[in-house]
Every structure is written in structure tokens, then in C-alpha cells.
């Protein structure tokens, strides 16, 4: 915890003010779109099947209290720095750690539905050769859960019915 706060303090000043870091600690999705860079995901999320049931942090931040703030600190720092320095890869994609957080959050809400599908061997990520834990993450199939079709710059145009 102390460490977390320490990190946060370190993040303060220019970078974080620029990123409107304060509102960043709310779970309000608007906090995320303080950065226009998050806009496509925000817009896409609003049209996704989860719009009514899950907000950004429900999927992208772990839900154990301490870890939550640690990750926010880490992400916040990463985000803030990245954003000010502008030196990040686009299109933005979820990194390995982000994928693990996602997987856990899918299970947090859907566990009862899917526990029957998961077995011990899923837990040993050393057997995973896919970016997803266990080689069969939810988003192997449900990559549209949060943002519909892939959310980047450019994306398949929706066919009118």
C-alpha cells in the first residue's frame, strides 16, 4: 500500500495533471476518456453488449482492493508517461498483464457459467503457447465482449441489415 502511494506520489506533478489524474481514480468511464486516445474504446464500449452491465474498470482493473490501486498506479504512471511522451505502439492493444486481468474479470462475473470448462491444466500458464492464459482465454472467442468488433483506428464497416 505504502509502495502504491509512493508510486502515485511519484507520478504526480506535470504528467498527472496533464492527464487529469484526479478524475482518473473514479470508476466513471468518462475518467478514461480524459484521454482522447481512449475515445475509440469508449465509443465502442457504449455500443457493446456490456454497456449496461460493466464499465471499464470492471474489466480492466483487478478487483482485489490493494491490487486495484497498485495497477491503477502502474497503469496511471504508464498511461500518463506514455501519453505525454507519445511513444507507444498503435494501435493500442491489451498486453499480457492486461489479458490476465481481463480473464479474471470475465470469470468474476461469469465463473458459475464457465467453471465447468476450466480445469487444473488451465492454471499452469507454462503450458500456454497462446497470449492468453491456459491457451484458451475467454476472448479467444469473445473478443467482441467489451468493444464489439475490434476497436482501433479503422475497423470493418458495419453492414447495414
Amino acid at each position: 500500500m505504502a509502495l502504491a502511494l509512493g508510486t502515485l506520489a511519484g507520478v504526480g506533478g506535470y504528467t498527472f495533471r496533464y492527464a487529469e489524474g484526479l478524475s482518473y481514480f473514479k470508476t466513471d468511464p468518462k475518467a478514461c476518456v480524459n484521454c482522447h486516445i481512449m475515445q475509440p474504446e469508449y465509443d465502442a464500449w457504449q455500443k457493446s453488449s456490456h454497456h449496461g452491465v460493466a464499465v471499464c474498470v470492471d474489466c480492466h482493473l483487478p478487483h482485489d482492493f490493494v491490487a486495484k490501486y497498485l495497477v491503477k498506479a502502474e497503469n496511471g504512471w504508464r498511461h500518463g508517461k506514455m501519453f505525454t511522451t507519445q511513444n507507444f505502439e498503435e494501435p493500442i492493444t491489451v498486453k499480457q498483464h492486461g489479458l490476465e486481468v481481463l480473464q479474471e474479470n470475465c470469470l468474476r462475473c461469469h465463473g458459475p457459467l464457465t467453471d465447468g470448462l476450466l480445469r487444473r491444466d488451465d492454471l499452469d500458464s507454462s503450458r500456454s503457447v497462446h497470449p492468453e492464459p491456459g491457451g484458451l482465454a475467454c476472448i479467444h472467442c469473445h473478443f467482441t465482449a467489451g468493444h464489439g468488433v475490434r476497436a482501433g483506428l479503422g475497423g470493418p464497416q458495419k453492414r447495414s441489415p
Partner: protein
Amino acid sequence: TNIFERKAEQRVPFVRVVEVGENDTDPAKWGRNWPSQYDSYKRTAQRTSTKYGGHLGSEALPQERIDRDPWLKRMFLGYAFSIDFRDRRGHAYMLQDQEGTQRLTKPQTGSCLHCHASILPVYRELGGGDVMKGFESTYKMSYQELDKKVHDMGHAHPVSCVDCHSPETMALRVTRPGFLVGIRALAESDADVPALESIRLWRAGSREQPYDPNRDAPRGEMRSFVCGQCHVEYYCSSKMPLTFPWGKGLSIDQIEAYWDATVFPDGSPFYDYEHQETGAKILKAQHPEFETWNQGIHARAGVSCADCHMPYQREGATKVSDHWVRSPLLNVNRACQTCHRTDESEILARVDVIQERNHDLLQRGGTAIVDLIQEIIRAKATGASPEQLAPALALQRRAQFRLDMVASENSMGFHAPQETAKVLGEAIDYARQGQLAARVLASAPEPAPPSP
């Protein structure tokens, strides 16, 4: 730190009402623990039919493919497939359809049962506990002898739970010796395997232990490997054990090169049969779904057989894998639409376009191969010598193997659309070149007498 550890404790283990073990080949027993998978498994007895999938013909017996495409029968003359070769159907029928085929009017080997019955316990007994040893003894047995043993030991079931699942953990596993030997040879080769990352990792590692899918392959790959135990090209006769030709790679050129380099134990060069009309030494192809899938974009993208053929299905409060293994086109919303967010009609149309292109080209190839066969017959009639015919016969072998690799593949090329079309293009070229080679002869002067 592994964020799944907490999850693991929360997870409720399966409540087992009965214990199941390695010798429990009867799915009904497993079904008491996992009723919904069992229920869907049983539905493979239902009749299904799509434009190119499932089967036409009567409820009692699928349609003859060799009647629907007479050029197939012509290609197979001299081999049992020219007697009886029908549409495939659901897993429930695999043993009875094998026992019932007219191909058995010719002597067949015990190897056949590798893919048509839940045979592991039989291998184990024959090998005195050693499955591999038992398996290697079966090619010398007659089909009837081993089939009787399978019945006597009470394992006369089609592919069953124990063939794909570990009875303790229910984890997927590969049990079939043919696959274990074949995939190991593939791993030890230097062939490209873009879709099989676990093999690339094994190659990069110490290689102390041979590649073993049950240890090295992740779940994502096991979801295809369990199918690759049977849906593959093979040699299955009495001269050597059942063989999957993967030692040089999984593409058709690599498989052909493997067969061309194979010699029988007696030292004679490998071939499946001699064509009745031309005498060409032919390679017979069988259902290379696994090999074909490997050439396609889905495999590269990590999409497994089970993703499409066993999609999840909601069952009350839980999700289960649909064990009614069948054409995904009967099931587009679950088999395709989770990943492809577009109308069902559009998805069906995409498949239709792909299959029609391959079907057109396949029929074009059928015409070419028949023209070649007739050209060779004509050349023989005009007295061409075996030496003179050799090039034409070699071309018949190459052309026929490629046509057959597509004709016997069961997705009409959907599993790898472009590769399938390419292979057909090559087949046509070889068939026509063979015709030209034979035609030279038809009008050739007598070969000059050997100089004294």
C-alpha cells in the same frame, strides 16, 4: 503471481456419481457423471446433410461417392475403394459402417480399427500392458480377427470419452499411437509448422525428451489434436504398421515426398495399388482434414477443430462443449458467429463461394484424369513400351494423389481454400502433361533396336 490460484480453490470439482477408468470404453458409464456431454454425444446418430457435408442417401446407408462422381471410381480401379466408398456420417456409426463396407470383401488389416473403435484396452492387452507394442502387432492381424477380439473384450464402441479424455482429470489427451508416432516425426523434422507453436517451442528447447503432445501441447492445440488422431491421411494395410506420413511436413508436396521416399520392409518402393487400366503405381489419399486445416488461416489464427465442430452451448446455468460433432453449417450462430459478427446468410454465402470454386476445379480435374487414363490406354494399344510409358504413369500418380487429397478431404476445401485450389491447379497440369507425354507415343515410331 498467478492470478488464477484463488480461482482454482473456488472451483467446484466435478461431482462424480461413478468412478471411470482406462478400461471404461462404454460412454454410458461416463454419461452418468457428465450427462449433458453424453446426451449431445449420442446425437451423432442423427442424420445430417448439407450441400457437401453430412450424407445423402437413405437413412440406412449413406450415398456412394463413387456413383456420384464416376471419375473417382475410374481412378480407384484396382483398389477396394472402387467397390464401395460412401459419404461419411456421425461418430455413432463409425464401427458399424466399417464392419458393413463392401471394401471388406478384399482382405483388410487389423490396423483399420485404430480409428473406428474404442480400442485402447485391446492394444494394452495385446502388448502385455504396452499400448505401442500392442498396436504394432495389429497390422499383421486380419480385420476380422481383431474386430472379433474388440467385441469379445467388450470394447465395440465408436470413439468414446476415454479416447479423448483422461479419466482422472478429464483433460484432453491423445491416445492413438498413429498420431503419437506421426506428430513426433513431424516435430523432429525441420518442416515449417506455423499453426503448431508447441512444436516450435520444443524444437527450440533441449530436445532431451521426444515431443509428446500430452505433455507439450497447450489446450488450444489439444482441441485439434484429438481430432488429428483419425482425420488424417494414412497408410493402412498389412505390409507395415499404420503410418501417418508427416516426417517431412504436412503439405501435399511434403507428404508425397515422404511416400516417394518410403520403402516397404521387403525393400520394394512404396505404393498403395496398381491402377487396373494403366498399371500406374498409385498413392491413395484419405480424409486429410488435419493436414488441410494446418494449411489454412484458421489454424494459423489458433482456431481449433473443436471451436467450429464442438462449439460451446448454453445448458441452463452452465456452458458445455457440444459433443454432437457435425457440420458447423448446421450450427452457424454458435460455430461461427461468436467470432464473425455478421449475418448467418452472409457466412453461409462465404462458405458456399469457397466450396463452389473448389468443386468446379475438382470436377475439371476429374475430366483431366479420365482423359489421361484413356490416353495411356490408347498409347498401350499402339504398342508403347513400359519404358516409354513411365513418364505418363508417373504423372498419373502425381495428378491422382493431388485430386484424391481434395476429393477425400471432407470440407470441400473450406479448411484451406487457396491451398486447395492451388493443389487442384497442379493436379490438372500434371494430368494434361501426362496426356501429352502419352500422346507422343501414340504417334511415335517404333523404338530403335538396341545397337549391337
